[in-house]
């Protein structure tokens, strides 16, 4: 699973794009407990008083097949849909499962999230395009089904002899929960576990919650489940696997939290933190938290950002001049812009694409130089070729394409 998570993410993303989903795989891992792997796993619990669906996935075509597949198993009505959180890949296909008496349960902050997505629809589409290479955009419908039952801390209900205990905790979002079905030792944990380094510092998204994340996962561990269904990727089964995998998530998040807090108290800058903080070897080699989606540097940046403001501590940047103005001054002092391009070529030949980009930006910001823009496109593409992180690779790819379009 871990070694090819980048491939898996790519495959899933392409499926979402092509609407070309293979047959639905409704996996029954324990009597009456199911999940369907997808871009956003969908959980299904069948009781003799009705069906509970946990998350609805991003792709409606896929969801329709899941619905039909449920109907092959049972005639029971869909009584509840539970949102583990309000991210698009968990809520987009809800309408497919809605029947006359279906209640939708979600944390009280989900409604505010949906309103935010509606308010910021163009912005969200733009950043979605960048993060997922424009492959998930068409699937996202922005026709949210708001929760009909909401809760602050937790919510419990029984159905067909099973009791569902829904427990709120912040983590990837402020509206997250996990669902514990005690009698059967099953937990559906949403994105508290995703077979990758926790995505706690997404470059394009708002603040996330590293401390509450590990505290909630500790809460999951205390319940000693025998099965944990994650929001993405395969089922966790058996005491050893669950203990090890979840503990790795706890340890890496606690590590990031404690390091960032320590260095903030020391007055150390973000730049220095990124240089000094190294993941302990045991966590580096864990197959459960490979850095193909979330990664350590994102996590440090996100956590740092959570506890600080927009001002970086350098008074120059309190009320800064525009980037173009600064660049113009520098160009004026350098006098000959060819010197910059030559230096960039030299750096690029040495493989130092990143430093070259900073210099090219002077020309682009200062005098909208076409040659610099062209070279930037090439260098950004080169960065995308070797980047093994799904998110940063997609950002580079997408922007390299855009830079080519401009020319």
């Amino acid at each position, binding site marked *: 699973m871990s070694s090819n998570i980048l491939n898996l993410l790519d495959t899933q993303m392409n499926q979402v794009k092509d609407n070309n989903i293979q047959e639905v795989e409704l996996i029954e891992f324990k009597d009456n407990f199911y999940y369907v792997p997808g871009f956003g796993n969908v959980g299904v619990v069948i009781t003799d008083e009705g069906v509970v669906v946990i998350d609805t996935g991003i792709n409606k075509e896929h969801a329709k097949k899941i619905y039909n597949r449920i109907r092959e198993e049972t005639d029971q009505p869909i009584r509840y849909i539970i949102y583990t959180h309000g991210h698009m890949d968990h809520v987009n296909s809800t309408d497919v499962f809605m029947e006359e008496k279906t209640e939708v349960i979600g944390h009280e902050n989900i409604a505010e999230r949906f309103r*935010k997505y509606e308010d*910021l629809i*163009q*912005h969200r589409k733009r950043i979605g395009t960048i993060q997922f290479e424009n492959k998930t955009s068409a699937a996202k419908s922005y026709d949210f089904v708001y929760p009909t039952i909401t809760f*602050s*801390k937790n919510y419990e209900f029984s159905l067909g002899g099973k009791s569902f205990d829904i427990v709120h905790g912040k983590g990837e979002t402020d509206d997250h929960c996990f669902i514990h079905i005690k009698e059967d030792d099953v937990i559906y944990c949403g994105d508290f576990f995703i077979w990758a380094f926790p995505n706690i*510092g*997404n*470059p*394009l*998204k*708002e*603040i996330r919650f590293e401390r509450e994340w590990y505290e909630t996962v500790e809460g999951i561990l205390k319940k000693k489940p025998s099965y944990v269904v994650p929001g993405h990727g395969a089922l966790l089964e058996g005491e050893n696997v669950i203990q090890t995998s979840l503990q790795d998530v706890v340890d890496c998040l606690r590590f990031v939290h404690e390091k960032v*807090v320590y260095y*903030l*108290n*020391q*007055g150390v800058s973000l*730049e220095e933190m990124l*240089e000094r903080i190294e993941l302990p070897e045991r966590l580096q080699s864990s197959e459960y938290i490979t850095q193909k989606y979330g990664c350590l540097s994102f996590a440090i940046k*996100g956590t740092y*950002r*959570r*506890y*600080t*403001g*927009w*001002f970086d*501590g*350098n*008074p*120059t940047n*309190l*009320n*800064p*001049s*525009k980037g173009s*103005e*600064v660049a113009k*001054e*520098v160009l004026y*002092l*350098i006098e000959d812009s060819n*010197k*910059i391009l030559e*230096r960039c070529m030299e750096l690029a030949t040495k493989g130092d694409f*990143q*430093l070259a*980009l*900073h*210099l*090219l*930006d*002077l020309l682009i910001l200062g005098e909208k130089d076409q040659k610099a823009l062209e070279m*930037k496109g090439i260098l950004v593409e080169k*960065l995308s070729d070797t980047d093994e992180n799904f998110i*940063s690779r997609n*950002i*580079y790819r997408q922007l*390299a394409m855009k830079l080519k379009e401009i020319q």
Partner: protein
Amino acid sequence: MSIAKLEQSMNTFKQGTKEVPFEKVKDDYYFTPAFGNVGIVVTDEGVVVVDSTLSKIQAEGILEKIKSVTEQPVKYLIYTHGHVDHVGGASVFTNEGAKIIAHRNVINRLDKYQELDKFHYLINKRQFATNFEETRSMNEFEYPDIVFDQEYVFQLGGKTFHLIHGKGETDDHTIIHVPEDDVVFTGDFLVRSFPNVGNPAKDIRYAKEWAIMMGKIRDLHPKITIPGHGPVITDSAEFDKVTIGFQDAMTFVQENVVHYLNEGKSLEDMIELIKLPSHLKENPYLQQFYGCLDFAIRGTYRRYTGWYDGNPTNLLPEKQSVISQEIVALIGDESKILEQAQSLMTQKRQRLALHLVDYIIQSNGKEKHEALKLKAEVLLYLSENEENFMRKNIYANAAEEIKNQLA
């Protein structure tokens, strides 16, 4: 209210005397204006105190005044939110047996302050030009005994205390309505300056919800409004002017930032494009000496975005020192940079000059000493000519740090 009054308020805190004003607002209601106002409600079943100000000594003075007007014990202390200037004196009241009531998120905030105590001394020293470390005010907190999520109601001596949660300056804010007497305690939903919804060094704040709470406060039609900072409002025309002003200002910021995010505009462009309409600019209650429009835009932009600014160069940037070395090498002559910085200063382009001297400082150049001297000089100039309290302090504090470094 003005910078001078704010400074005076900080000085009173520093002098730390028990001599506090204790104004009778109406029967049973008293008020101490301080750095962090304190409200007092006397009933014949006990006293309710709203907030406890920053200074313990001042809180002791307030307790003495309370004892001079009633024999009733202080039963409850309500936190309008968890900022230190509202919870600092709490132990004075809990020692008398008072129970603390607050929003649930106050707990997390106090945990955070303790964990990040040194960091908060550092940023507050910059913001207030005051060293709070001497008073150890960041690590002796009284935690709430009773917490709530959305609303909390209790009766005491024939008065109803209706606590309503909302987000604004913080995520743990509460207003208190006593319907029998038409009194509302607003905490920092009302202060005497442009709402501080994007503090340079602090975490995320909430413009949208701030505007919503203004609507709720207006719907309560209070005869007496007691804010977290600044004088009591009893005049209905004044009430309208303040509350409508705050509501409009927050709605204006929210709508404009959302609009330009959807348009794909950069933060830099937004700062240039968004201009406060004249009726808000001229509203005496929205003067920008504490919070200001620029901070509000940056804060609101930050709330809805990630740490990445959209330029692929800045996704995994090179260290600033390395970039600066490259630029200084391309310019070739550090004294040329210093000359240009000086020339910018004579053209009153001080902020731009800061960017230039930073290249020398960050690259650790030969002229670093001169560059630092120049930077301190520019910062002092900016501080002296600055009308915003926080910017003024941040510039002055940075200038002083550089001088200490050079000495």
